[in-house]
C-alpha cells in the first residue's frame, strides 16, 4: 500500500513551499528519516526526512513547483520490494480539501490546478465556523447557526449573517465578488471621449507595466558642463553633415556602455517560463511625444553606431513618428528605453518601465547651478537622471551601479572614446 506524504506546516503558519530539490528518485529504496526533499518556504529552506521506509512510488510535485501545505508530495510504497502499481495521481482537489460546504463561493473550480487550490484547513462536514460571540448572538436571536450561510473568511459565519437571516432577509452576498470598476459620478459640463487607438494602447501598457513590474526609482545628479562643451564643439561639424546634434546620442552611447557592464538592465522576465532573458542586442527606445500621444521609437543596434550616426537615426525616427509614418519595426523591439522631455525635463520623475523591459532612464533639465568643487563654489551645468527598474530582476545595488556608470561617462565624455567601436 502506498503511503502518501503530504507537506506539513514546517514552520509556524506556513501555507506553502517551493520544491527546491528532490533527493530521491521514483523507484528508489528509501529509509526512515532519510532526507528526501528540500522545500523552501517563506521562512526557511528545510530538508524533509522520510517518515516511512519503502520504495518511492511516485513524486507528485516537481522541482520548482509550489506545494500547498496538506498537498501530497510523494507516495511511498511500504510493501517491500516492487514499486507501486500504476496508481493515478490524486486529483488536485484531494490535496487541498474544499472549505466548509456552507461557503460555496470558496469551492475551487473543478479544473483548478493544485498550485492554485485553496489551502483552507479541512472542516468536518456540519461544523460551523463562527466566533463565540456570533454563536451567542445566534442563540439569543433563536437562529440555528447551522442553517446560516457564512460569508466571512473561510466560510465563517459573521454576526451580520446571523442578523440577516433573523430579520428574514436573504443571506448576505458572497464576500469574494470581483472588484467592480468604480462608478464615476457624472457632473455638468463633462465631455466623454471613447478610449481608443494609441490612447487605449498607452493606457493598457502603462497599467500592465505598473501592475506587473516591481518599480523602484533611483535618481542621481550629473555634472554635464564638460558634455556641453563637447557638444558645442561638435555641433558645428554635425551641421556640416546636415544633422542637429542633441545630448541624446551621447546619452544613448553612455547607456550602451553601461548596459554591457550590467547586463541585468538589458533584460526581460519571462513569467510563463520563470526565466530571465538577457538581451544580447542593444535596441534603445526613445520616448517621443506625438500629437496622438507617447510613442517609443527604436534605435536598433545603438551600440554599433557612432555619435553622428545615432544623431541622424534619432532625428529620422522622431520625424517619421511625429508624421505618423513610422513603420511597425521602428516602434517595437527595444531592449531599454530613454525618456526625455527636453526643456520640460523638470527636476525628477518616476518613469514607468516600457514593459517587458526592466529599466527606463529619465533625462531631466540641465541647468546652471552653484556647486562646490575643491572647496570653491563654482557655476556648473547640472542635470538629474532618474531611472526606474523592475526590482524582480534588478536589485537596488546593481541598478545604482548602472546609473553611476552612465553618469560617469556623461560627466567625463572623453571616457566614451574608450568604449567606441
Amino acid at each position, binding site marked *: 500500500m502506498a503511503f502518501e*506524504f*503530504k*507537506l*506539513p*506546516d*514546517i*514552520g*509556524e503558519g506556513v501555507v506553502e513551499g517551493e520544491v527546491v530539490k528532490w533527493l530521491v528518485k521514483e523507484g528508489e529504496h528509501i529509509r526512515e*528519516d532519510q532526507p528526501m526533499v528540500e522545500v523552501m518556504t517563506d*521562512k*526557511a*529552506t*528545510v*530538508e*524533509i*526526512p*522520510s*517518515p516511512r521506509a519503502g520504495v518511492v512510488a511516485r513524486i507528485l510535485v516537481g522541482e520548482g513547483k509550489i506545494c500547498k501545505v496538506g498537498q501530497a508530495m510523494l507516495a511511498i510504497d511500504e510493501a517491500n520490494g516492487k514499486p507501486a502499481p500504476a496508481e493515478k495521481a490524486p486529483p488536485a482537489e484531494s490535496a487541498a480539501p474544499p472549505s466548509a460546504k456552507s461557503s460555496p463561493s470558496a469551492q475551487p473550480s473543478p479544473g483548478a490546478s493544485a498550485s492554485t487550490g485553496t489551502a483552507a484547513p479541512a472542516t468536518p462536514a456540519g*461544523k460551523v465556523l463562527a466566533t*463565540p460571540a456570533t454563536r451567542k448572538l445566534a442563540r439569543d436571536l433563536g437562529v440555528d447557526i447551522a442553517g446560516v450561510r457564512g460569508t466571512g473568511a473561510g466560510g465563517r459565519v459573521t454576526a451580520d449573517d446571523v442578523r440577516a437571516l433573523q430579520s428574514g432577509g436573504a443571506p448576505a452576498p458572497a464576500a469574494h465578488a470581483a472588484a467592480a470598476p468604480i462608478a464615476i459620478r457624472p457632473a455638468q459640463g463633462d465631455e466623454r471621449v471613447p478610449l481608443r487607438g494609441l490612447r487605449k494602447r498607452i493606457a493598457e501598457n502603462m497599467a500592465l507595466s505598473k501592475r506587473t513590474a516591481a518599480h523602484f526609482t533611483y535618481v542621481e545628479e550629473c555634472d554635464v558642463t564638460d558634455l556641453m562643451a563637447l557638444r558645442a564643439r561638435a555641433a558645428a561639424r554635425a551641421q556640416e553633415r546636415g544633422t542637429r546634434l542633441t545630448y541624446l546620442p551621447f546619452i544613448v552611447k553612455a547607456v550602451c556602455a553601461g548596459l554591457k557592464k550590467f547586463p541585468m538592465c538589458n533584460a526581460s522576465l519571462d513569467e510563463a517560463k520563470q526565466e530571465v532573458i538577457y538581451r544580447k542586442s542593444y535596441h534603445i527606445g526613445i520616448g517621443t511625444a506625438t500629437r496622438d500621444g507617447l510613442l517609443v521609437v527604436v534605435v536598433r543596434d545603438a551600440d554599433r553606431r557612432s555619435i553622428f550616426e545615432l544623431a541622424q537615426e534619432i532625428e529620422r525616427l522622431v520625424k517619421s513618428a511625429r508624421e505618423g509614418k513610422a513603420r511597425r519595426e521602428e516602434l517595437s523591439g527595444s531592449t531599454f528605453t530613454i525618456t526625455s522631455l527636453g526643456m520640460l525635463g523638470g527636476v525628477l520623475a518616476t518613469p514607468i518601465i516600457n514593459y517587458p523591459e526592466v529599466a527606463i532612464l529619465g533625462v531631466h533639465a540641465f541647468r546652471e547651478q552653484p556647486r562646490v568643487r575643491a572647496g570653491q563654489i563654482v557655476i556648473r551645468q547640472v542635470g538629474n537622471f532618474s531611472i526606474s527598474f523592475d526590482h524582480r530582476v534588478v536589485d537596488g545595488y546593481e541598478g545604482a551601479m548602472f546609473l553611476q556608470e552612465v553618469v560617469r561617462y556623461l560627466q567625463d565624455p572623453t571616457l566614451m572614446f574608450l568604449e567606441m567601436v
Partner: protein
Amino acid sequence: MGPMRAARKTPVVIPPHLRVPGVSDEELAPALGLYQILLPEGELAVPERELPALEPAQLIEMYRGLLLIRTTDERMMALQRQGRIGFYGEARGQEAAVIGSAYALEPEDYVVPALREAGAALLRGLPLRAYVAQIFGNANDVAHGRQLPCHPGSRASRYVTMSSCVASQLPHATGMAWAAKIRGHKTVVMGYLGDGATSEEDFHVALNFAGVFEVPVVFFCQNNQWAISVPVTQQTASDTIAVKALAYGLPGVRVDGNDILGIYKVTKEAVDRARAGGGPTLIEALTYRVSAHSSSDDPSRYRDESVTAEWKQKDPIARFRKYLLARHVLDEGADERLREHVAGEVRDAIAAEENVPPPPIDTLIQDVYAEVPAHLREQLEEHKKSRS
C-alpha cells in the same frame, strides 16, 4: 572563587577600564577568563589533581545524558519536518552545558530552565516517554497539551515548566531560593538563562535580590551567542557576561561551554557554596548555537554559517568521548552498544506515544478551575451536543 585561578592556562589580562576601587583581580580574573579542563582534542588543560572527583560510572551516566538528548533532538527535528509534531527547539552543541551543570545538583535541588535544558529534566529522572508525550501534547502529557512542544515540567524531578518568556524565570529562581533559605532547607536552585536574557530587567532584578539576600541560587547562562537572530555582540557591551555578576556583589565565572568536566567543576563549586550559605554565583558557559533557534528558524538568513562549521568541530560529545576512550572508561564496543540502546529507547518512546489520543475535551476546563464555572460548563455541554 579561588580554585579557578590555578586552572587557567594563560594569565587573564584585566582591561584598565575594569580596574575600579573595591574589585580585586581575584574577583575579576574568573569572570574574564575561560576555565577549561578538556580541550577540543580531549587533552587536559589542567593537572590531574584538578580533575573533578567523578567515578567511571558517573562519567558514563553523564555521557549517556549527552547521547540521550542529542538522539532525542535529532529524531524530534525529523518528526517536525514530517509534520508529526508541531514545533521543536534542539540543544545541539550545547549538551555539555546542560548535562555538566545539572549533574552538579542533588535530587532535592530545583531546576528553573530557560529553553534548551530538557536534557537536565531527563537526567533528573523525567521518563523519556513523559517528555515525548509532552511533545505530542497527548492524553499522557501532564500539561494536557497546553505548553509548546519541548517545554516539559516535572514535579518529581523538581524541574519547573519552561516559561518561554525571556528571563522571566530568573526572579522565580531567586524567590524559590529565598524561600528555601527562610525555611532552612538545604536546597539549591539552578536558574538557567541565555545570553539574550541578560538584556532583560528580570535578569537585573533576580541577580540584585539574590545578592542582597544571599540566597542559594546559581544562575547558569548558556551563552550560545545568538538570541534567535541577535548576536551577543549586539546584546551587551560588557567584556563578558560573567563580569556582570560583580556589579551585584556575586562571583562570576566563565567556562568553556563545550567542556563538560570544566562545567561540572565550576558548577559543583558554586552549588556547594550556595548550599553552605555562601550565596549566589553567575556562571557563563561560552558555547554556540550550531542549530537553528527552533524548527521555525533558518539561521543561514542572518549569520555566517562558516563560523557555525568551526563550532561544530568543537562538538562537546565528541570531546568527552575522546577523553573517555583515552581513559579506558569507555571502549568502542561499549560506545556502540550505548548509542544503539539510547536510539532504541527513543524509538520505543515515540512508537508508544505517537498514537495516544489527544487529551479529553473536559481537561480543557477541569485542570484550570477547582470548581468549573457555570458558563464554561454550559459551553462544554453545548460542544458535546454538537459533536454527538
